[in-house]
């Protein structure tokens, strides 16, 4: 459902009590231009809202942004919730200023991967590269012909 590649539906949003709106709009522009059908939930989105939106829209991926440093608390249990909602195999990306303080990139990535995210990006991610990764991840999805 939703399919992969150019016509895939993806969910965007900024998680938790985070109201950084600008970057999210830029992401919407970039992913729309890359041919994705973008459903942008805006700022201050809960985990449940991400999952519910993905169910109704038949989305293939959820891209979670977190800019204010509380990403670790907000994103904890994200994959488990998707499993509960019956979309356990959906592609999950997370990106932004994910944690406060000095943590190595590897350590942060390990934490978020343990929560079930397929890819973890810092604030300086190259969006073109992310778009490419997403397309190739969608191609590799189970059940994708």
């Amino acid at each position: 459902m939703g399919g992969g590649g150019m016509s895939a539906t993806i969910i965007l949003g900024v998680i938790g009590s985070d109201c950084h709106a600008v970057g999210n709009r830029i992401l919407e522009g970039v992913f729309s231009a890359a041919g994705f059908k973008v459903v942008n939930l805006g700022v201050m989105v809960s985990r449940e809202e991400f999952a519910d939106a993905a169910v109704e829209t038949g989305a293939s991926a959820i891209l979670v942004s977190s800019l204010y440093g509380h990403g670790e608390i907000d994103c904890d249990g994200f994959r488990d919730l998707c499993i509960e909602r019956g979309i356990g195999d959906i592609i999950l990306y997370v990106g932004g200023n994910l944690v406060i303080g000095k943590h190595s990139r590897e350590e942060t990535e390990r934490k978020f991967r343990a929560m079930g995210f397929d890819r973890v990006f810092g604030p300086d991610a190259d969006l073109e590269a992310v778009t490419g990764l997403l397309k190739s991840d969608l191609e590799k999805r189970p059940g994708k012909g």
Partner: protein
Amino acid sequence: MEEIIAIDLGSTRTKGALFRVEEERLRPLMREEADTHPGDLEEGFSRVLEALLVRSSGKPSLAYSSSAKGGLSICAVGIVPELTLKMAKQTALSAGGKVSSHFAWKLTEEDLRTIAGERPDIILLTGGTDGGNEEYLLYNASQLAELSSLGWEGPVLFAGNRCAADRVRKILDGKELYICKNILPELDRPEPEPARGEIRRIFLQRLCEGKGLGNIIRRTGEHPLPTPSVLFDFLSLGALREGPLFPENGGGMVLFDIGGATSDCYSFGVRPPADGRVLRGLPEPDPKRSVEGDLGLRVSAQAAVAAAEAEGFFRTGRSAEEADAQAAALRAYAGRVSRETDAPPADEDRLLAEICLTHALVRHAGRMREAATASGTVFVQEGKDLTGVSAVIGTGGYLSRCAAPPALPAPPLFDRTGWELLLPGRARFFQDTDYLWPLLANAARIHPGAALRLAPEVLAERSFYES
């Protein structure tokens, strides 16, 4: 001289009025009522019609509506409770229906037995945005195809993901199936109108007859609509929502009808959310109708008292002993009138009505919380903001006649999780003393402008605070 007869067939009383159109304004000439006989709707209708015809000087046009015989019952099926299922329920209510039952996710065998037992007039099958989820939808369609094995099947209206429509048609081949546009084609773009129109069409073409209205249709040559649907259309008229009908109407109005079994609440002309608020959830409709099946003055009196106790209603501003005593007294009264449903209004009804009004309003209204974020304080809003509502209109048997309106809840009020409820702050109460609005709403199907001009004039302002 142009004249209009409007009739509202209620479950216990049939009400009617004769209006004359004078200078683009309706003038009420006569009001008539009779008992509704559940076994023969035509009897009460004929009495009212004939009495009004005697007073008529010409050939009046006729518009009538019905909420008799259980009204229009709709079973709502969606996927996510807060998304397509919520839309399905709102659509059913806006079409004048009552939601007999509702189901999210996948329909179970038990759900099917519930549906077969309730025999709703229409099953509204929704789910998925266009191009979105099909899995639940197709599964639920297959389940509904099995209903006939339970000895009953009814019309299904499909208003979900359009990409699944062809397969739904195949799955429900040979059943009575109607297909219309998705009520939620995109997550942020509700489109209830096509489904509303289709529900109305199904009511007119298929359901009227079974509701005991066949003889009336054949006799008058006119078709009725469900009463709440007519009222909803009336409140949708732009002039009522935005125009200067009420000079004091700055921020919208709420119309209430508290009956024996249910409380009906409509909000209309409500200002859009303030700038800078972060909005969560589906966009709110305007008008918006909600119906509470557990809040009423007779059949639902016990449920209303139970809801009030659960929400701590009696405790507000009272000691625990006083609260318990008051709750016990009202519980006894509710027990009695829920058995003797034709008991005349008593003093206790004012408190019961206050319970119905308060809880129906709290459920209808949205809520807001303050969130401290890294970039300062932000207000997050869910649902409809009624804080600017300036007028509450009471209609229907009790609110049209009561000597003093039930008190409105006094903001600020907060729900259990600390969200502030967005309730009307300083609204004035207007009483539809002759129960004319539902009749005006019918007349508006023929002459909307003239009906609108009369609408504010038939209301009498009452103070919330006199006793």
